[in-house]
């Protein structure tokens, strides 16, 4: 298994993924033209044919034994450049009166575009049959190695939007209580349009004044910053890297956006470059590999788990298979992270 940039030949494979993801994964609609556009734009990003801040890096997880796509993930270099990037931000307002000896603070949702210009990690999908052997972690963490390697192409901060809480009927209580009053459509339609980048209706219709959370229903308040059960593992993985919820939520479902300074992300801080030596022997196969490596060239970016870490002299020894998978030979360098 390896991570590599999506390629122009991946359209069929990507469409297969898009069909699987289904509703709720709005950035990957089952629309061949849209997907072809996405691939083209990603290809141009990795080829560095667009300015660094406009790039959308789209990666696939490839089963290099069976030659099929197992999943995908993406990094957007800077969000909010073309269309506004909205969040609600949970802020605290003091409601006090010395004369009445009253001092309360009220959580209030402020419309915000504070994250304009930050990087975003997004669009992570892993096909069910590949949900083992840390493939999910590979998809998630490979992005940190990429950002560490090409650090100057990214801004100070990175964020990730987490899907919010839904009830047993697949309804978002947050949307029900808030968005439904302002948007003449159901949640999925609103989400779909947003996924397609058709966001102008948001600015046109959404409430522009702050929302005092006590006016929301209890169920809606419980959605503020709460994640969908399916998203919990992804959130945990991001938290371990040091991403935190700083009060920003999705305007539709109330799900948290977690964020960090890129330089503070654990994988970015701790990964380092090591020289490679390719030795014939295969390493022990392990179900829980601990060493993640990535190559150092953008267009040929590859990331994969390897069987062992650098030796005492700092050299990383790879098997032939591993070297082939990554496209490296003795004397090359790899970015290495112990996880």
């Amino acid at each position, binding site marked *: 298994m390896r991570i590599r940039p999506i390629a122009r030949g991946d359209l069929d494979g990507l469409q297969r993924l898009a069909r699987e993801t289904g509703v709720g994964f709005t950035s990957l609609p089952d629309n061949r033209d849209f997907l072809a556009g996405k691939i083209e734009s990603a290809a141009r990003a990795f080829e560095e044919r667009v300015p660094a801040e406009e790039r959308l890096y789209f990666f696939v997880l490839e089963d290099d034994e069976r030659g099929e796509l197992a999943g995908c993930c993406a990094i957007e270099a800077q969000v909010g450049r073309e269309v506004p990037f909205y969040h609600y931000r949970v802020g605290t307002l003091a409601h006090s009166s010395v004369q009445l000896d009253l001092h309360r603070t009220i959580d209030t949702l402020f419309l915000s575009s504070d994250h304009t210009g930050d990087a975003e990690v997004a669009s992570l999908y892993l096909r069910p049959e590949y949900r083992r052997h840390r493939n999910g972690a590979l998809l998630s963490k490979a992005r940190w190695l990429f950002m560490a390697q090409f650090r100057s192409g990214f801004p100070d901060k990175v964020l990730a939007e987490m899907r919010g809480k839904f009830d047993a009927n697949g309804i978002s209580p947050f949307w029900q209580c808030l968005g439904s009053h302002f948007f003449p459509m159901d949640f999925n339609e609103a989400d779909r349009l947003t996924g397609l980048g058709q966001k102008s209706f948001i600015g*046109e219709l959404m409430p522009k004044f*702050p929302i*005092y959370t006590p006016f929301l229903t209890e169920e809606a308040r419980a959605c503020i910053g709460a994640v969908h059960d399916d998203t919990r593992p992804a959130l945990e993985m991001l938290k371990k890297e040091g991403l935190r919820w700083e009060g920003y939520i999705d305007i539709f479902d109330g799900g948290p956006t977690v964020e960090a300074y890129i330089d503070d992300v654990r994988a970015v801080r701790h990964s380092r470059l090591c020289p490679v030596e390719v030795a014939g022997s295969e390493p022990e196969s392990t179900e829980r590999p601990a060493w993640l490596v990535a190559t150092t060239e953008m267009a040929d970016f590859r990331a994969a788990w390897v069987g062992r870490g650098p030796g005492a002299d700092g050299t990383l020894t790879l098997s032939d298979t591993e070297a082939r998978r990554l496209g490296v030979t003795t004397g090359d360098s790899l970015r290495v992270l112990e996880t």
Partner: protein
Amino acid sequence: MLVVRPAKPADLPGLERLAGTATPRLTNLPAHRDRLEERITRSQRSLAREIDFPGDESYTFVLEDLERGEIAGTATIRAHAGAHEAYYTYRQETLIHASQQLNVRREVQTLSLSHEVSDASLLCALSLDPRYKGTSAESLLRRSRLMFIAQYPERFAELLAIAFPGYLDADGESPFWNSVGRHFFARGYQEMNHLAGVRSKSFIAEVMPQFPLYLPLLTPAARAAIGREHPAHETALAEMLAEGFARSRHVDIFDAGPVIKAERERLATFRHSTWHPVRIRPATALPDAEPALIANQKLEGFRCVVARYALSPTGQLMLSPEHAAELGVEEGRAVLAAPLGLPDADDAFDEGEL
């Protein structure tokens, strides 16, 4: 005979009783002896002062039943609602959210905190002994204030406003307060109302949310209470609309009771009030005539009664010796008279309001 006159210190027990029996309890008439005493003092000071334009004066009147020797009602005028601190209201606004992308147009109602009523003179703190409900005493107490304003226009704003007590449910709870104020103030309506009376309404207003509220986020019961008067004040509201007041976009910030307003020259009492010289005739000799509000032309000695609008062919107002004595006028002195009857009520928003 019933007469309206400025309150004096001896009226304190009567005022206290009226404050205690007001339905509902009024924020601006707390049953609190010290506050009521202050109010009387302030009224007396206001009447004694020379005034060129409205300021922090407050005029408190009582309705006295001379036969019973009892105080049967009270009412107040605040010359300038926002003289000291802002007079807060919620202003109902409509926002239009239109989407080009989706080709839809939606109207969204909001309530915005406003200080605009601060500029008005405020008719407030009215309480009437229930035994006099439905009699002309009610109109006398309510509208004698307009007779006072008509005589001393320099003491009041062009714009008059009245905030009617808002809708409370059978348990005396305010559905609006429970959906709005309670979140910020953490106390029940009655407790807040008491505190607001004894301390200051604006202290509480400062704790209230400063950004506009979206109506769809309030409870249905709260929304239904917006601009709805307390059931006990339906008649009073109808009379004031007939007088020429109009509903405004403003409602009370605590209970969402309606705030009505008028430029004073549009009011029936102002438009139809006329000066007449007095002619005194025995009560038995007075011709039959429609009832009218009759007020003398004295500041501290202000008196207003209901009497027959009996005019001589030469335009003199014929009063009984008792009425003349109570008004403190002799023959030939002028009094102001206005018919007690009003045109039909016109309960509508002021369309001219922008």
